[in-house]
């Protein structure tokens, strides 16, 4: 891909800005809501933004950055499996996904 000069900086700025904004949107969603699924979805948005941001920052070192990106995606995919299983167990026990209820659940999920 041959894109040179100021346009390269402009695209780099654009992608880094998109990443930062996605992280901010994800953090906003995770803090604003009390629904467990919505918190998970918001954190996934934040992860996508973080991936974009970190790749745009370390773009000069392509090989370690690629290894980092592949490992990040693999770990987050595993984390999703556990969190969704926990949320499903929590919903079966309490009948709700509201985090306020979690404070009153006895004996854990």
């Amino acid at each position, binding site marked *: *891909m041959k894109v040179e000069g100021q*346009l390269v*900086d402009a*695209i*780099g700025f654009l*992608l880094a800005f*998109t990443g*930062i904004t*996605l*992280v*901010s*949107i*994800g953090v*906003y*969603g995770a*803090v*604003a*809501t*009390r*629904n467990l*699924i*919505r918190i*998970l*979805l*918001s954190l*996934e*948005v934040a992860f*996508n*933004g973080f*991936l*974009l*941001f970190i*790749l*745009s*920052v370390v*773009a*000069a070192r*392509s090989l370690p*950055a*690629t*290894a980092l*990106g592949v*490992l990040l*995606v*693999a*770990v*987050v*995919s*595993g984390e*999703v499996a*556990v969190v*969704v*299983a926990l*949320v*499903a*167990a*929590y*919903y079966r026990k309490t009948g709700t*996904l509201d*985090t306020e209820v979690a404070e009153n659940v006895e004996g854990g999920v």
Partner: protein
Amino acid sequence: MYDYLYYYGAALISGLALFTAVYVVKGKDLLYSSVTLALTASLVALLVAFMGYTLIAAVQLIVYVGAAVMFIIISVSLLGAKDTSARNEVAGIVAGLTTFVALSLYAYKLYPAFTFVSNVNVDQLATVMLERYGLVIVLITVALAATIVEAISVAKRG
């Protein structure tokens, strides 16, 4: 001419990614939000491919969108839960703005001149990953295997 098309293409995809991300966070229906997350992740994979990281984009599409997000969508549709909880918009906006300012300052300090990644040699990458990050890969593999067992155990016990 081609360069500007490239820039406007990236800008359009970035805008779409931000729009879908807002819907994921603000949408009323959890199932639609989950499906939109798949769209957001696909658009981010496209932006990652724009930078030259085609391998990461492929892994993101196949492993993350194809497996992880699909798992969320199927689970949400099977649970059939609704989002009826109250929202704390002020705390969310404060946290989001704080994150934005902190990351912007961090990016301003660290940001180098942007360079497009030349095509990464997969053979070279495999060698680097096994030689330099061999222990990390073993640990992640064990952790992911344990994660799968844990997920099945938790889901069955519930």
